């Protein structure tokens, strides 16, 4: 994917994030993920039904990388089984940490494939998806 396209995808997801805004629906489980070292802070909601991720929502203030990666992660993980989702997250973590990973599995999430070149932003690119992972583990 070329860098122009990557930037466009990131900016679109930052400016119009997918599933931003929380619901009052009690059937969701809730969590918070914040960064102790910078100012990013997310509230996250997850709904799992029959082992399938039915919905994820979030709210909060964060930088462009953190917000966009949250948005893309959500659109990627909805509809997946818990095992599929955890597998995607594991591959995403490997990509961020410069290990071998399955590129096809990640689709749009590969816009962050070069983020390792900016070490201080690795945590921005993982904050949201790590928050989702915590919730999925609670749901299991």
């Amino acid at each position: 994917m070329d860098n122009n396209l990557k930037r466009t995808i990131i900016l679109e997801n930052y400016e119009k994030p997918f599933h931003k805004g929380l619901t009052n629906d009690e059937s969701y489980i809730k969590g918070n993920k914040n960064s102790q070292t910078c100012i990013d802070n997310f509230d996250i909601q997850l709904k799992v039904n029959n082992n399938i991720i039915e919905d994820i929502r979030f709210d909060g203030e964060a930088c462009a990388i953190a917000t966009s990666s949250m948005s893309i992660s959500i659109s990627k993980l909805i509809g997946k089984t818990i095992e599929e989702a955890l597998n995607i997250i594991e591959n995403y973590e490997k990509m961020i940490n410069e290990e071998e990973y399955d590129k096809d599995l990640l689709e749009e999430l590969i816009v962050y494939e070069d983020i390792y070149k900016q070490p201080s932003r690795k945590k921005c690119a993982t904050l949201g998806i790590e928050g989702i992972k915590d919730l999925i583990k609670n749901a299991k």
Partner: protein
Amino acid sequence: MNREDFPILESGIVYFDNGATTLKPKCVIDSMVDYYTNYPSNAHRGDYKISLKASSEYELAREKLKDFINAETKEEIVFTSGSTESLNMIVNGYFKYFLKENDEVLITKAEHASNILPWYELENEIGIKVNYIPLTKDHTISLENVKNSITDKTKVISIAHISNVIGDVRPLKEIISYAHEKGILVVVDAAQSVGHINVDVKDLDIDFMAMSAHKMCGPTGIGALYAKYDLLDKIKPYKYGGGMNVAFTDPKNIQYMDLPTKLEAGTQNIAGVIGFGKAIDYINEIGIDNIEEYTDNLKKYLVDRLKEINNINIYNENIEGSTLTFNIDKVFAQDTAIYLDKYNICVRSGEHCAKKLDDELGIKNTVRVSLYFYNNKEDIDKLVDALKNDKILEESIGI
């Protein structure tokens, strides 16, 4: 002015994070290297020449600070690791023993965490009440709001002389004189004011004051606590040990030293104190009034130039002083800071350790430019040039 005194500026960086810490001039660095190289001995405990020199330089720095803030005696100055430690000593060494349940302390929501959390913990511990003086619409403190916040339970007011986010200079003289009429003590967090504007503890009639050397060209990890002698003498040490005792035989027979040494247990940050003393000399050479006038004018230039940018929100343009807080429309503060770093411009983003200020500003994260005397118009022009760009967000991503 005096840019040539700061080796780091040769690298071409534009340094606008003076509210966090200032740069260090070569003379301060050299004074510390001189100590470590030529008389690296302990203070107050040797009978040989280099130790006597270390002791006298250490005490000379105390003398310099006493003159700098116009304290009555040098015994009113205690060296600490900085404003945070000083404030904790004031709260936990004095007020913990003199306040009772339901006594009130007044602070503001614009205070630094170091002037909030010690009070919150004291509320948790002994049941005092922390109340807030409401800020004006410019986020400053007015005497009227102070008067309206005082009740017959108010025992202490604890505020910064200059706020680290808004940058306003609080009307301390009026506040303190009114507080004293009501029998209220005043604690001043002077982290942002000493070395930036003239601070005269006698003229202002300050009861307790906290300072940090690193915000006025000095080294990190060193600062001071000032209090009027009788108040300082009532602060209970929280560190006991070497250096601060005269004699002891058993728990019933201990004699501690007099002020200020009884509050300086253990081997001190001698190099830090010496560097602090040098920073005071350096600032005196430039002249504190010159520094204040210069940064005030520079801020006016900064405001004028930033207004050329149409998608900017400035939160404190009408405030005199050296701090300016802003956001670029639709760009998260941290992204703006990361973007500016690509141009070697150092600014701070976030909540600036004033996490309660969100309630007042209605906005959580901002970008802060804080000026000092070595900044110049050219620095500001570089900032404005960098911000005149529709693609800040895009470029901040770094991909």
